[in-house]
């Protein structure tokens, strides 16, 4: 714990770690917050803006909106949601799902997003990563990787909500994504997503070991132990949580408190 005094950090510099970020992930279908199971079956949970507002008030470090339908047809609904949310949520907002071009990115940033997460379009046209990074800065270009295990220690990046193969090795794709200009990796385990059986720690570690940009672990959080494993063993810089928050299994204040009690640094509110 740092105090506000002058000589605050001496003696702990070598063990000082950056604060872990606790991200509330909200998957959106049309006007609804949904919870998917392994990116397939979905359940409606409620009004996304209401949930986002609550997570902000409870101390979420960031909000992540992911459009599960990702069709152009729904685009206006999503931009409107982002615009309304940004008027009352004063932490970073990331938006992903179906963004296909730098112009799509601009629309979301103008609506109030701070960062965009791009998956499918980047796998089809990797230059898009560079284009977005050059036009808007690497800081807002989050490469979203939906990874599915193909055999132990190997994962393939999937696109289009996990429905299509890309043939890309997820770890190699992450490394290339950084080189192309991505500022963060949003790493979702398709196998664990919605299962509450824990993050794919081996995947997080494998990607984290080849990139120098932050890795956000997503998919599978069910308990605090899962979070600690993703960070402690996997080396994740941030965790995205959905199910445990939406269904009230764990609250953000409890997570923050318990995380700190276990020696992992999180921001003080």
């Amino acid at each position, binding site marked *: 714990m740092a105090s506000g005094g*002058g000589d605050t950090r001496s003696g702990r*510099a070598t063990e000082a770690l950056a604060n872990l970020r606790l991200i509330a992930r909200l998957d959106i279908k049309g006007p609804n917050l949904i919870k998917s199971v392994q990116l397939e079956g979905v359940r409606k949970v409620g009004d996304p803006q209401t949930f986002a507002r609550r997570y902000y008030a409870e101390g979420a470090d960031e909000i992540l909106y992911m459009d599960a339908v990702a069709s152009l047809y729904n685009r206006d609904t999503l931009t409107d949601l982002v615009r309304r949310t940004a008027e009352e949520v*004063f932490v970073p907002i990331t938006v992903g799902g179906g963004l296909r071009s730098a112009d799509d990115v601009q629309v979301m940033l103008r609506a109030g997003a701070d960062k965009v997460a791009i998956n499918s379009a980047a796998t089809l046209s990797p230059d898009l990563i560079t284009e977005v990074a050059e036009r808007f*800065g690497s800081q807002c270009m989050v490469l979203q990787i939906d990874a599915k295990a193909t055999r132990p220690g190997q994962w393939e990046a999937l696109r289009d909500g996990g429905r299509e193969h890309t043939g890309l090795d997820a770890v190699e794709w992450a490394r290339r994504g950084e080189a192309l200009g991505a500022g963060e990796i949003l790493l979702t385990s398709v196998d664990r997503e919605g299962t509450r059986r824990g993050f794919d720690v081996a995947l997080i570690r494998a990607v984290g070991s080849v990139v120098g940009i932050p890795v956000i672990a997503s998919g599978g959080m069910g308990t605090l132990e899962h979070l600690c494993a993703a960070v402690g063993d996997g080396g994740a*810089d941030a965790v995205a949580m959905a199910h445990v928050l939406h269904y009230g299994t764990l609250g953000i204040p409890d997570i923050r408190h318990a995380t700190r009690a276990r020696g992992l640094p999180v921001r003080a509110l």
Partner: protein
Amino acid sequence: MTVSVTVVDYGSGNLLSVCRALRHCGADVAAVETASAIDTADRLVVPGVGAMADSMRRLRERGLIEPIRRYAASNRPLLGICVGMQVMFDASEEFGEHAGLGVIPGRVRRLPKVGVDGRARKIPHIGWNTLARARGVNDWSGTILAGLSGQASAYFLHSYAVEPDDETVRLADCDYEGTRICAAVRRGQLYGCQFHPEKSGEVGLAILRNFLAL
């Protein structure tokens, strides 16, 4: 009485977020892109994200370099945010050598990829970090950081940081895994913060309210 604040619109990505947060704090906000609007401002905010060279180019194209310099010299309240703070300095090494506005002596340098302890740092520095009083600063009262607890955290998102020539302009520092980063500066009524108050939750809103009360 509603406080009015002028935000410089030079194509910065966080313009809307900054305006929204200031409005949420009760201010009457005008986003402007003309020299005359800056000359007549009572309170000025320069937002910023991305690269300093690009920001300077956009300020130059709009003819806003001299108006901001004039404003800064007038000792009216000014807040530069992130790259909007970095442009106040003399020069940056980002993508080659680039001159800044030069209203605060010092340079903008890339964060070291490896800390003094030899361990690798992730760049950009993304996330929440605790604001600590800079060396020699005993008290934040009367500044934009007035009333913050010693635990207050703000949201950072940057790969470059300012290094003021004069250590006394440093108002707050933060510690990024052992590297001391200049988090906020003050020179008279001229303020800069490396973090994003518009994205730093209630702490950030408190900082903006302090700025509106200067």
